[in-house]
């Protein structure tokens, strides 16, 4: 039942969302989403608040009814099944433990509802307490536990009845950073050990990267990017995903034939992109850490390698951020760029210096269609 085993098996679709919609009056909270969730995968819905990710999760849990569309689990429709018959586990943002029950009774609650025998109940609860390492807290009330411990109880309560799917709605959002990272590691190992299908909602992209096998990026009620964290980051499918995930430099260039372009009058090379018209404006995206900033002396020493681009810019600011350093530059045409390098590599520039910014042609993504709001980091919510 380990993830390793799952990787070898052909992926089997467990849940599929078909043209799912949720409207509140004229407002489309979820706008025609179609998605297949594989059996045993860890999938994260990533998006800013109001992007429709939590509403989609609520529809999966059964707390919201879709305006239209289908939710299929193993091919059977779930739309008209009430939450208590869905056999889905859920962990809530504010834990939502039963305040009147002890930790043990909280975890035993789903089993008691299912009328399991006392002996079986005890056995399973004990196993769960061990799994989340709360054996010694079994008789406490939720109010007597820390936030991290409460969340572990919530996870145990959601897992004890062995649901097919575990939904998690920003479960670590209320915890501080250190604890959150510890629990993320625990959660990843738990998933690997149990092989359960997990759908996780978060607005924290680092958390999404750390945990999930696949990420679905939500914006304005739609899924705008779907894939592994690596693919989405290295090859964003559109400008929105590029600006949403991590940091990015956008350059407006004019295409001239295949693989050639000009940026502010200087010639540039770009990836081969089919279907480009002569003189068409396209968008080039370079990650700050893929770009290099070289001082005049460095440029004199190191010739431009084949397959690399180079533009001239003026240094605006150099920032030291601990393990890394960033350097903000502005080109002659007024395009702002950021270059990031590990501190160990050193950045000898001063504000006002003229530098050459270089990047490999293969590392720059090309977009032919984009909206101005896509380039804004804060976009994504309604």
């Amino acid at each position: 039942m380990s993830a390793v085993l799952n990787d070898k098996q052909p992926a089997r679709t467990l849940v599929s969302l078909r043209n799912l919609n949720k409207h509140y009056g004229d407002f489309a909270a979820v706008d025609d989403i179609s998605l297949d969730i594989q059996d045993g995968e860890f999938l994260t819905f990533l998006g800013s608040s109001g992007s429709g990710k939590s509403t989609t999760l609520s529809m999966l849990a059964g707390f919201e009814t879709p305006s239209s569309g289908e939710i299929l689990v193993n091919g059977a429709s779930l739309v008209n099944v009430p939450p208590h018959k869905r056999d889905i586990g859920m962990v809530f943002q504010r834990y939502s433990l039963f305040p009147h029950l002890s930790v043990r009774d909280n975890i035993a609650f789903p089993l008691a509802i299912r009328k399991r025998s006392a002996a079986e109940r005890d056995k399973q609860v004990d196993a769960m307490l061990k799994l989340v390492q709360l054996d010694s807290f079994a008789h406490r009330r939720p109010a007597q536990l820390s936030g991290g411990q409460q969340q572990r109880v919530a996870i145990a309560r959601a897992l004890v009845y062995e649901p097919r799917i575990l939904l998690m709605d920003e479960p670590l959002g209320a915890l501080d950073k250190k604890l959150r990272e510890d629990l993320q590691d625990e959660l990843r190992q738990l998933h690997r050990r149990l092989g359960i299908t997990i759908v996780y909602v978060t607005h924290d992209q680092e958390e999404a990267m750390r945990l999930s096998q696949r990420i679905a990026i939500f914006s304005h009620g739609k899924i705008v990017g779907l894939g592994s964290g690596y693919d989405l980051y290295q090859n964003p499918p559109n400008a929105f995903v590029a600006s949403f995930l991590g940091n990015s430099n956008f350059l407006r260039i004019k295409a001239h034939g295949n693989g050639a372009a000009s940026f502010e009058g200087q010639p540039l090379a770009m990836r081969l992109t089919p279907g480009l018209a002569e003189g068409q404006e396209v968008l080039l995206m370079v990650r700050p850490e893929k770009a290099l900033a070289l001082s005049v002396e460095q440029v004199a020493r190191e010739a431009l390698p084949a397959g690399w681009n180079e533009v001239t810019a003026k240094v605006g600011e150099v920032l030291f951020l601990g393990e890394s350093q960033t350097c903000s530059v502005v080109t002659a045409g007024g395009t702002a760029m950021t270059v990031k390098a590990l501190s160990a590599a050193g950045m000898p520039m001063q504000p006002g210096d003229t530098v050459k910014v270089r990047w490999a042609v293969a590392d720059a993504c090309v977009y032919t269609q984009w909206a101005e709001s896509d380039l804004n980091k804060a976009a994504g919510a309604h």
Partner: protein
Amino acid sequence: MKVAINALQAPSGAATGAKGAAMKHTPPLRERWRGRRNLLPALLFLGLFFFAPLISLLLRGVLEPVPGLGNYEQLFANSAYARVLFNTFSVAGLVTLISVLLGFPLAWAITLVPRGWGRWLLNIVLLSMWTSLLARTYSWLVLLQASGVINKALMALGIIDAPLEMVHNLTGVVIGMSYIMIPFIVLPLQATMQAIDPMVLQAGSICGASPWSNFFKVFLPLCRSGLFSGALMVFVMSLGYYVTPALLGGAQNMMLPEFIVQQVQSFLNWGLASAAAALLIAITLVLFYFYLKLQPESPVGNSNAR
């Protein structure tokens, strides 16, 4: 009536306060009683205007007409008096049951309806509480009497042939008092329900609880503290209620407060009246003791104190 609510909430507050103090380091007795002289005016006031009349009243129960426990003996031995006690308890119990059964859905509705509407509903409940008690009781008389609106309507509809006797008996008392007591159960209950996190109920249902078992296993236990304090308040108030039983009740089926008034005003039998009053106080104190014992440390309150 507001005072009654405060009085009921205060003991639980005081109890937790005392617990909190006990957990901390307790300073020596002399330290704690330093400045006790400042208490003197308050103690004097309480003693003079509160304890002295109360004690003199209770003393009458054992001193008049002859010293001894004769009054109490009479109270329990005489079947007519025992009947009064039985009436008092059964009416108080029935009123508590009915106001819980009617007040619970009302409190729930106030909690569930959208914000502004809930406030309106609550205001209506409060408004009825602030209207003159006499006016409300007399209006029940108008509604319930033989030639009243309800009887006329039922007869016009052909449901009954002769008017129902709904007033000047215990039926009338129970109806009138239940109506008056409902706000006292709705207020604490609504406050408790308001504090329940609706996500906890969602958690219950995703854990597999049907709406039915979610209600009994999650919602009701979380309402327990409000239900307890509301029901106790209604029961204790009902035991000592005078105006409504006097107006809506009959002469043959008395309740304890009416009995006390009758003994004092008609027979000038202060001894028996004060024995009955002492009994009422004793019952109330015993109930209060059990309330404090049984009252769980409010689970809702705890979960909110994050």
